[in-house]
């Protein structure tokens, strides 16, 4: 804004010089660089929402464009935004460590893995922050409690990547008066053999997202067995709900973009440290009515569930 006033106050020829300088000296253009993992509508949706909620200006590019023209990174002091895990990984490697990075639209497990992998390059960790695409455990367990008030045990299955989250999950489960039952699944385990008794012992089941192969193979078995045992599933994505999970807490690309925009609005101006990585602030609840009906669960509308959930986790 000060820039605008400055420009208005210039003499015409001074203004001309100024604009010429602007062309030559790109670092004077205070634009935040937003790097999309791929040129796809989903990522562009996030970027668009960021722009809508941020008064500064953005330059949106894709990872492949950036690789071809790395000068786009040339010294800016403002926050660079990565949209998606691939862009995050790339920027963690090439972004000058004096800069600040906001990673958005990636799973918590991916962020953790990437920041461990490339963290040694970054002496000041408070230059890094993230907005995850998945939901905090509190929300999922609170939703489970809302769906099935009388449930006592909550079950989950973990793979290699989510194993570290078990402790936190048990703690949050206790907070919502759940007893946690869990098993881990390794590559050479018979998944059905291990899932069957586990789901049988659960009143409600919450699979946690892990690596792709794990998700892809286990989702199928979990859906079948939970359906057969009449155990409600809390999914971790819209797709899971469409395939048969009873409900999920979900943040759309628009909701995540909005949070990104607000983040920039708040932190871009100051040159200070960034807050720790955060879960999505804006979310909705989606449910599968057919699945609910087959499980004899009477659910209020998605909007009402959403409202009740927000009240719970406030």
């Amino acid at each position, binding site marked *: 804004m000060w820039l605008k006033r400055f420009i208005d106050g210039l003499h015409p020829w001074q203004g001309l010089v100024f604009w010429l300088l602007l062309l030559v000296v790109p670092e004077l253009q205070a634009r935040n660089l937003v790097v999309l993992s791929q040129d796809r509508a989903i990522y562009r949706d996030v970027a668009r929402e960021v722009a809508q909620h941020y008064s500064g200006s953005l330059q949106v590019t894709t990872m492949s464009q950036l690789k071809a023209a790395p000068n786009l990174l040339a010294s800016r002091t403002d926050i660079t935004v990565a949209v998606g895990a*691939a862009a995050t990984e790339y920027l963690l490697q090439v972004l000058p460590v004096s800069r600040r990075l906001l990673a958005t639209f990636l799973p918590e497990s991916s962020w953790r893995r990437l920041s461990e992998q490339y963290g040694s390059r970054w002496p000041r960790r408070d230059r890094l922050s993230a907005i995850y695409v998945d939901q905090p455990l509190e929300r999922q367990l609170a939703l489970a409690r809302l769906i099935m008030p009388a449930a006592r045990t909550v079950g989950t299955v973990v793979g290699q990547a989510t194993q570290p989250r078990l402790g936190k999950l048990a703690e949050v489960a206790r907070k919502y008066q759940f007893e946690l039952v869990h098993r881990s699944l390794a590559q050479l385990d018979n998944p059905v053999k291990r899932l069957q008794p586990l789901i049988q012992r659960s009143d409600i089941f919450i699979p946690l997202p892990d690596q792709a192969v794990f998700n892809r193979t286990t989702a199928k078995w979990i859906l079948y067995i939970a359906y057969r045992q009449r155990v409600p599933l809390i999914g971790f994505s819209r797709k899971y709900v469409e395939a048969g999970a009873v409900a999920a807490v979900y943040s759309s690309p628009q909701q995540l973009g909005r949070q990104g925009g607000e983040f920039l609005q708040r932190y871009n101006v100051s040159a200070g440290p960034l807050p720790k990585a955060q879960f999505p602030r804006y979310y909705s609840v989606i449910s599968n009515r057919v699945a609910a009906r087959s499980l004899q669960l009477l659910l209020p509308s998605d909007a009402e569930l959403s409202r009740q959930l927000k009240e719970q986790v406030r």
Partner: protein
Amino acid sequence: MNQLIRRVKRHRSTCIFGGLLTASTAAADMTGGLFSELDYLTDIPQVVSATRLPQQLTQAPAAITIIDRAMIDAAPVLRVEDLFRLVPGMQSLSVTRNTSMVTYHGVADNFPDNLEVMVDGRSIYLPFLSTVDWSGLGLSLDDIDHIEVVRGSNVPAYGSNAFLGAINIVTRSPLAEAGSSARLLAGSQQERQFEARHAGYSEDLDYRLTTGYRSNEGSALFEDSQTIRFANLSVAFTPTLQDTLDLQLGINQTEMLVGSAVSADEQFVPADIQSNYQYLRWGRELDADRALQLTLSRNLIDLSMPEFKAEELILREFAQVNDMETALQLARLQGIDGVAIWSDSAMGRATTTEFELQYTQHLTPQLGLMAGAGYRWETVNSPMQLTGEQRINEERSTLFSNIQWQYNEQLVWNLGGMLEHFSATQYTRLSPRLALNYLLTERSALRASYTRAYRMPSLLEANLKSTIYNRDGQPWNVLTVNNPNLKPEQLDSYELGSYWRSDSGQLELDLRLYYEQISDGMRDRFYLHPVDHDGYYSRKENIASWRNRGLDLQLKLQPWQNAMLWLAYGYQDVKGGYFEGIQPFPADATRGGVQQLDSAAPAHTVSLLYNQQLDPTWRYSVANYFMSDTNWPEGGARSSFWRTDLKVSHQLVASSKWLVESSVLVQNLFDRDYAEFYPFNKFDRRAYLQFAVKAR
């Protein structure tokens, strides 16, 4: 005598979960790579049939109809093949009271050879009849999870039989069910059906067993009764996280009277069909981007018909002959007394053993690859149709591939092909397909494709030769002569398609505009024979050509709460024919001359299904079918008809463990007087009562 031969010739001339749980797992789209944000998104139903690569409907290179569990439950049908009346452009007809035919775009007789039918990817097409035996399917409607129908040639993915289309019946995984269920049905013409199913699991295995019994006394006119007994077992085993083993075993026994309902005094003969199958599939997810699948299957069918001595057959067939004395005299005159003749040529024993390997990989986020190879071994004994041969063996080898390239956000290319070699002919053929999809949004797409497909002659068509010898071992009547140079039929298919789904998912629209040119179609060509009994014989030759053009339209709508409306419309314009031989034929005035195919398919077909859930316990559905005038090869000229079917169901929670569903089903509710294929197989009004008990 002439009638006898005509009858035999007629048969000779006719020789021939949560839906989609299999593909809807968390990340089967084009991202490749480790678990990423993209796994959360995309919500289009996924299909596997078009290219064997898991693809979204908007990216598949063909028009696909998915008949899901909800439709199967809603449709007022008794048999699996009746479900295909709901597919635009497809015809499912009652040939005789207990036999059916299913074809796509008409131009087929009661043994349609242009449509591949598979159960979980295993072909149930019979090479020695060149068709599908629906009575031997051995499945309960409850065993089915969903059906994928590819409308348009699918030879590039599944080979020869999928010349104009392909049906894949996907059964429910044993993991999806638990407990027992039973179903009892009774109704018109002494229809009795009983089914019992049980799904269970041990520590390591999950299984489902289905057993069934069906019988009815047949139509009033012919009393062509049928009794079917079947059982099937499905076992699933997951030894490791990445491996899945599926084993399926089935057995089926059908006893029925067969014949052609061409005249009111047609004599039906008893047929006994025994069949069984074994199927093993091993799937392995190698990593996030690659998967491997190996299948082994074996089908065996034994079709036996009574063997008659010539004089017995004469006595049976000819109204003028009333006693054995006369019949014997006539037979002696011809020198065929005591000669064994099968009353129906479609009989014998066939075994098919098949092995197939399939590999899929996401090479990059934009590029998907499927490649595979297959080998099939067929053995047929068919004395009537393959005279003089003890056994015929044929081998079929295939190499196939499809590449999907997502050029950018909007454009998806699919290039695929099937290289097929069949030992019965010396021809090897490559059937390619090229398709371009333009994605308007995440839920809608336009598509243009071109396919060149070849239908290899079946084992039967390639080896067919049939002669009746007299007592002295001399040829008395040469029926068919073998054609060693029989070529594959060729198809050039061009299509424009569009698929559109509304944001809420309440409206789905699918439109396909097509132009199909078929050449070298195999038909019987008749020639004069100087010394043979009736003076002529036939030989299978590549003499037919025709073109189809038209459109298939499919609409699925949820107009208001708890209701579903399905509309399928097909328009088809056929032009073509073939020259059957120089007329007149001494024994058969209907033979020879130019055979037009212009009306061998209905110009208009309409199917409408409306399902309404009234309250938690009551539900009803109404189906309406219309077909315009058609002149079916073999069946004859049928005038247009429409028919209404109704089903009303009530569900009762009998106890904490059991659910009872009672239904009333009426077919041809308004008792329209019409026939679908043969003139004398009229479809009467039928009513049924059904009780089903399911574990909750």
